[in-house]
């Protein structure tokens, strides 16, 4: 009898303690382009995300973060499908999504139908996402495509002496935004853009596009990414192309600079601009590169993190720090978390980042030039660091609004 009572007490105690120790989970849904043209970008984005978890840990006070990953293919409908699945089936409370430009616009619009949840943009960079009718629960801790081109037009015009260029870009919002940023600066100084070619995302055969490139230009600007960029370079080499090149932010990136084959060597000496530079001396950047390298064996990663890894790192970091600030309190439709995200200033690997009133990042931009490290690996070398780049690119709001939204033909090549 006595023994039985003791046994009962022990069992009760065990049960009690186990409930006391059972951790409350905070479920976060993550999307990345793990299929299609941008597969490599999505994979490296996830590496950046994992690196952030390795550095910062998953603990939020006495709660623990749990991540559910869904794959997309850079199309807006795939992103909405993935986000909807994460919310409805996996019951996630917070989203870290998406990766690509058009996806970003779609997910932002979708975010409005779930005002109670919090959306932290993972890496997408179309201007429209946060500039036009922004969602109050959508936060973007990376700059947009136009901000990432700041400094490039000036460097091309003044230092390189390019006066007339042509552009080739993928036909969707992020690249429109990139060309927008380039054109404003380059044309503002007096440069000319003689033709803008747009190719569908996922184009394999660029031979005709290459043939249609004008001969009488000083440089050709490439706004391509992933498989498209690799295919372009390969066929450009076969066609014997020799023009000076300029690159967009996902063109001059480790996703392309570490691709297999030697077509990428056409990029040596190419000037570009992006939210990061591989060889930046800053200790925060070097620490991040080290953490990235330590998180994965050499054959499972790039020599140095890509822009996508950096963006996923930054957005994961912002989310974790904001959650810690409110001690994981998601009550009252996550209002405390949203308030914390809106005013947090993070010390990201690629410089300090804070948000403007549209919850869009203001950060640091880098003009770079591609160099060979002597062992056959290509890196982007810092040429210029430009701090505090905002979404209106230094224009006042009224002038900026007059330019119009980035598209195939906007902005016109003139001084605004």
């Amino acid at each position, binding site marked *: 009898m006595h023994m039985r009572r003791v046994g009962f007490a022990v069992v009760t105690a065990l049960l009690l303690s186990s409930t006391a120790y059972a951790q409350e989970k905070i479920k976060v849904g993550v999307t990345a382009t793990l299929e299609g043209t941008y597969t490599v970008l999505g994979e490296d984005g996830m590496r950046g995300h994992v690196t952030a978890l390795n550095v910062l840990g998953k603990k939020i006070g006495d709660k623990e973060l749990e991540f559910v990953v869904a794959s997309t293919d850079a199309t807006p409908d795939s992103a909405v499908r993935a986000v909807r699945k994460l919310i409805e089936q996996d019951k996630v409370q917070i989203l870290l999504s998406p990766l690509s430009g058009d996806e970003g616009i779609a997910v932002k619009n979708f975010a409005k139908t779930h005002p109670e949840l919090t959306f932290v943009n993972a890496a997408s960079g179309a201007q429209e996402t946060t500039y036009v009718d922004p969602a109050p629960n959508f936060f973007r801790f990376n700059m947009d495509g136009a901000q990432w081109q700041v400094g490039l037009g000036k460097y091309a015009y003044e230092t390189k002496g390019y006066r007339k260029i042509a552009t080739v870009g993928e036909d969707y919002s992020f690249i429109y935004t990139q060309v927008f940023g380039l054109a404003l600066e380059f044309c503002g100084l007096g440069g000319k853009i003689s033709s803008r070619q747009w190719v569908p995302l996922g184009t394999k055969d660029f031979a005709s*596009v290459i043939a249609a490139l004008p001969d009488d230009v000083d440089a050709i600007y490439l706004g391509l990414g992933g498989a498209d960029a690799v*295919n372009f370079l390969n066929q450009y080499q076969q066609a014997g192309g020799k023009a000076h090149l300029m690159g967009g932010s996902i063109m001059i990136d480790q996703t392309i600079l570490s691709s*297999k084959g030697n077509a990428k060597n056409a990029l040596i000496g190419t000037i570009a601009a992006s939210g990061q530079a591989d060889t930046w001396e800053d200790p925060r950047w070097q620490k991040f590169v080290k953490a990235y390298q330590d998180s994965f064996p050499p054959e499972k990663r790039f020599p140095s993190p890509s822009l996508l890894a950096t963006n996923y790192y930054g957005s994961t970091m912002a989310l974790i720090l904001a959650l810690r600030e409110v001690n994981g309190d998601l009550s009252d439709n996550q209002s405390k978390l949203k308030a914390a995200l809106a005013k947090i200033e993070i010390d990201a690997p690629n410089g300090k980042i804070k948000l403007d009133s549209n919850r869009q990042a203001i950060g640091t931009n880098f003009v770079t030039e591609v160099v060979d490290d002597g062992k056959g690996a290509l890196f982007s070398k810092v040429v210029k660091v430009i701090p505090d780049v905002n979404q209106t690119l230094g224009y006042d709001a009224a002038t900026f609004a007059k330019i119009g939204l980035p598209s195939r033909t906007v902005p016109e090549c003139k001084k605004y």
Partner: protein
Amino acid sequence: MTGFVERHPIWSLIILLIMAFLAWLIFAVWPPGLEEAIGRKKVFLSAVFNGITLGGLYFLVASGFTLIFGLMRNVNLAHGSLYLFGGYVGYGISAATGSWILAFIAAFIVVAIIGVLLQLLVFRRMEGQDLRQTMVTIGLSIVFADLMLWAFGGDFYQIQTPAWLIGPVQLPLMTAMKSSGEAVFLQYPLVRLVIFCGSVVIGILMWLALNRTRVGMIVRAGVDDREILAATGVQIQLVFVLVFAFGAGLAGIAGVVGGTFQSISPGEDTRFLLASLVVVIVGGMGSIPGAALGAIIIGLAEQLGSVYIPTYAIVVTFLIMVLVLALRPQGLLARR
């Protein structure tokens, strides 16, 4: 040919005029008015050449597909996976040995062996059950795609073009006349021309083998009536295995070609399956000349479309398919 002219004199005249106009577009130096209206001649000529050479690649994939369908009535929806796997094998061999030619041989043999296994282990067990075969091959293509993603990752692989094929050659086609009267000739990537010639040679050899040899006779007889052929004592199962191996091997070779002038990555399998389906639907299921014609039409439509109407380039291909299905559902060159 003369029969066609006699039956359709007006159509013949229209076709002749179009051909003459195309020949003029290709060989003449364009007058300035035309250049202003539709762009430089260099762009047009390159697009035509690109369309034809891309057609060569499509032909390699689609001819294996159509051969297998013609003989065995197997709609092998795992054909795209064979293409992609051939590309990976070719990449592995060329990276290990540095030999481009060896990559072709290895890809052909390895993928042909897979084809033999597919025929022996899958198709023979469900002969004559079209729907089951279709479902099984869809399933297999998904499994193969995931296995390849697991083994090779999501990376893009490019097969190294041999040094002697890199760079452009000058073709004896004038694109413009300089003010000094000096002619400017078209520069074109050598590798694409070589690959195109290769696929033409393969096409001609296939046609000869089918129409001039004993084995070809057996295959043609099999296309017409399998039961009677088997009843005459031909080992029809052996013929099936050989044809399947050959068709699969061609897809493997095409994978190496695709990996050389484009790149191979996950997703290419469905892209080329779709392309070869469109090609054989346009050309006619089971017809080798049909596959050649369909491949050229689709290649040209894609390339000219991407230059002149970039926004709608993708639609053009499918418009052609819809038109063919509406007007000549059996395909342009189908016999029945």
